[in-house]
């Protein structure tokens, strides 16, 4: 009994200590900095190394720290590139195979931890740094997921470099070894040499994957460089708690504007907001709660809370949120959601009327209303809004909901098939509730014309493998534009991308399309090229390798004490353009 009593009292003491600790901790609320923009991010970062940041969240964050040769003018439509680290737009050779790019002078790296350079201020960015950045992406030992998207087969001499790095291993690479296609002309001039003209290469030079890195920083941090970014952008990483929080602070040696040649004095200097704090979440409800409390300045709208935020049928903010000073910003996304038909499938491949019938049996308006809360535009063709060739009034008869016409088409399809259409299988890229509901909806819709469909559910990794290997009949998919050129979507139908692992997941091959594609591939933007694009799009609409579902719209919320924001599909380094009215925020939060 005595022993039991002692154990009991010790236990009580421990519980008491814990309760006391909790009581004390209630006063340890992390201080809110009045100069900080608080942002929530529903993602896990892959890496803070531009060469590894193939996911959007990592690239978006890195865009605040790193700079590329080019960037997109903020808030400008149509999208236009401007030279950022480059001094001017590239000079092309007569055959368009060579791009000569001059660099601005005086742009320096900054290391906030002052480990690479004693005072943190690094050397000026030179041609050597730019070429090192590019070569690094093409290093076998780094295994960058960006390599095949950006440079492979698109720069002369790259295969030799790749094989060389593979041969010598990670410690033996001589970074000054020349590569024919990556030339250092002088200290502030580089030249890229391509096997054939590639008008889209400039977009790669404006993508965060090619953010310019310092060789000194990489050599210092080695493998940990992915945790310690050292860039030349408007912000630097002051604190990084993995999977929790990143704090960005204004880069003291940033020149003040992305298109400036030298330091801009005074109040014109950007960034205006000196500190940005990102908190990372995997579930939507907790950050939503925190946003409605005013603890985050920006937010998306979780599906479950959509009714709380948006008035049904109007697409406008509810009075409760509007009263708090919350502002809604809507924008079309440069993306297309679709259902793909694997044209290698013996049933679907030879049966265009079947694909057309299924496309006409799909009610896009109801789908957008029921599954996207109205946040989308019913699809017409593969090219979404925002591109020059997109025409909202264009008629695609196979993208219009018409059950009668669909049933007529199905009769034609059954004649080609030699009988009723057997059960088809659709592969969904997730097994969550929403995917199951969407699949059920699709099954019901196709059932209206007598086509039986059975859904299969996989996680994204498995879905990716099965679509890569063309192991599906139908599959749900989506494509988000990487740059403002219709070629980014049209490559998804190009015959040479049809073999396994290529981006042409439907394995669609059409000789006329391919001829037009190859003609357009070496042309820069012009009315003639747009005509080619429009002809290609017509082929795709007619042949129906995709059932075009819809183009998503983004609904973003922010408090009215934040201003200067624009929806941007491309580009990076946006927060430097924003403003924060600290007094208004303090007043509003104090009133609550």
């Amino acid at each position, binding site marked *: 009994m005595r022993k039991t009593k002692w154990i009991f009292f010790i*236990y009580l003491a421990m519980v008491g200590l814990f309760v006391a600790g909790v009581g004390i*901790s209630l006063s*340890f*609320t992390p201080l809110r900095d009045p100069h900080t923009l608080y942002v929530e991010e529903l993602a896990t970062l892959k890496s803070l190394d531009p060469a590894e940041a193939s996911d959007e969240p990592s690239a978006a964050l890195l865009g605040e720290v790193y700079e590329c040769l080019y960037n997109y003018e903020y808030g400008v439509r149509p999208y236009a590139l401007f030279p950022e680290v480059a001094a001017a737009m590239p000079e092309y050779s007569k055959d368009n195979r060579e791009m000569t790019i001059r660099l601005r002078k005086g742009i320096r790296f900054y290391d906030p931890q002052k480990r690479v350079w004693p005072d943190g201020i690094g050397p000026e960015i030179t041609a050597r740094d730019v070429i090192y950045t590019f070569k690094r992406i093409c290093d076998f*030992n780094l295994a960058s*997921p960006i390599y*095949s998207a950006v440079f492979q087969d698109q720069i002369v001499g790259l295969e030799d470099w790749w094989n060389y790095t593979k041969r010598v291993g990670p410690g033996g690479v001589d970074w000054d070894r020349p590569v024919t296609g990556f030339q250092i002309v002088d200290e502030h001039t580089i030249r890229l040499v391509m096997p054939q003209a590639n008008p889209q290469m400039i977009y790669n030079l404006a993508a965060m994957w090619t953010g310019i890195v310092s060789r000194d920083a990489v050599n210092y941090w080695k493998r940990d460089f992915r945790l310690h970014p050292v860039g030349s952008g408007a912000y630097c990483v002051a604190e990084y708690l993995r999977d929790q929080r990143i704090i960005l602070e204004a880069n003291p040696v940033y020149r003040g504007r992305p298109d400036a040649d030298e330091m801009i004095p005074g109040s014109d200097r950007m960034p205006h907001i000196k500190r940005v704090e990102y908190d990372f979440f995997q579930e939507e*409800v907790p950050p939503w*709660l925190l946003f409605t409390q005013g603890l985050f300045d920006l937010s998306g709208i979780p599906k479950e809370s959509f009714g709380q935020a948006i008035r049904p049928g109007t697409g406008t903010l509810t009075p409760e949120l509007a009263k708090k000073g919350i502002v809604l910003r809507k924008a079309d996304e440069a993306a297309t959601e679709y259902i793909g038909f694997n044209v290698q499938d013996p049933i679907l491949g030879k049966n265009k009327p079947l694909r057309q019938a299924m496309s006409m049996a799909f009610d896009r308006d109801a789908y957008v209303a029921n599954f996207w809360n109205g946040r989308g535009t019913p699809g017409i063709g593969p090219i979404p809004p925002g591109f020059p060739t997109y025409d909202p009034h264009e008629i695609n008869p196979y993208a219009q909901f018409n059950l009668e016409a669909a049933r007529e088409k199905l009769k034609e399809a059954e004649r080609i098939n030699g009988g009723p259409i057997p059960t088809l299988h659709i592969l969904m890229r997730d097994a969550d509730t929403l995917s199951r509901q969407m699949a059920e909806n699709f099954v019901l819709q196709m059932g209206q014309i007598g086509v039986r469909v059975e859904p299969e559910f996989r996680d994204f990794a498995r879905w990716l493998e099965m679509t*890569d290997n063309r192991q599906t009949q139908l599959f749900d998919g989506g494509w988000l534009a990487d740059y403002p050129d219709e070629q980014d979507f049209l490559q998804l139908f190009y015959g040479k991308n049809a073999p396994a692992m290529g981006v042409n997941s439907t394995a669609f091959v059409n000789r006329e399309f391919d001829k037009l594609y190859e003609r357009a591939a070496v042309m820069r933007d012009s009315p003639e090229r747009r005509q080619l694009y429009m002809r290609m799009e017509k082929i795709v609409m007619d042949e129906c390798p995709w059932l075009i579902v819809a183009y998503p719209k983004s609904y973003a919320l922010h408090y009215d004490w934040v201003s200067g924001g624009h929806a941007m599909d491309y580009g990076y380094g946006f927060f430097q353009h924003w403003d924060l009215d600290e007094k208004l925020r303090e007043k509003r939060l104090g009133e609550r």
Partner: protein
Amino acid sequence: MLAYIFRKLLLSIPILLGIVAVTFLLFCIVAPDPARVYAGKFKSEAQLQAIRHQLGTDVPKWRQFTNILTFHFANSSRYQESVWRLFARKAPVSLAIQVPAFFIELGLQLALALLVASKRGTILDYGVTFLSVVGLSVPAISLYLTMQWVFGGWLQWFPVAGWSAGFFYALHFAALPIIASIIAGLGYGVRFYRTVVLEEINADYVRTARAKGVGARETLFTHVLGNVLIPVLTNTVATLPLLFVGSLLLERLFQIPGFGNLLVDAIHAQDQPVVMFIVYVTSLLYLLMLIVTDVLYTLVDPRVTLR
């Protein structure tokens, strides 16, 4: 006893091998190529070869298996970091939630079980039993979300979610998940231990002690509690290794960057090294703790001998 322990250790080896082998085989059969997942939408064979080399998946499967058995895990394909480093970083966070929750919950379960068992048939007994059944029936996710809404969103006594470095800052974020975890686990424990205590209270030796004039409290704490400890040990000691893994759901909802959250991410991302690490290490610790439980029986109950 040593012979017993040695025998148990030997028997554990094929069990452990079996668990690891089955998990590894499942990954080989079901999981996609992690290189493709890492590469994303644009990929080439050359690039995949480089990624496989970095992930360590370009060696034969039998070599990968033996590496796992000798604790040479490949880097996490999701984080590109050593799984040991991930463990060192995340396990303390999980433990910071699980250890206080475990001990407070256990103490409360035992205390309530003893109380209601000794007051069997009274309103208190019925009331606590009813609440326990309600607690058992409510899904943990509903409880966690409700507590977030009420204490974080409405009353704003605690942060809704998140974590921070520093002892008191971490405790500030840990308080609500710990309380939620305790409440979620109370129902089952109270019901189970009440049954165990009742069995002992109805035993002959207790009736004899009471007949001899031993007080109710002394009977409970001196005679009954000691015999209740065996099922308590069985129920708790072997689950101690799982404290490192944390509660997957709790960490996910409260945004705790612990090992449970990592496991959920690893399963979603088909991150084989992390999943294999957790399966292997927790199975090993579990089997070891079963042996420890057997040894502890001999301390709790002198009648038990291990041969």
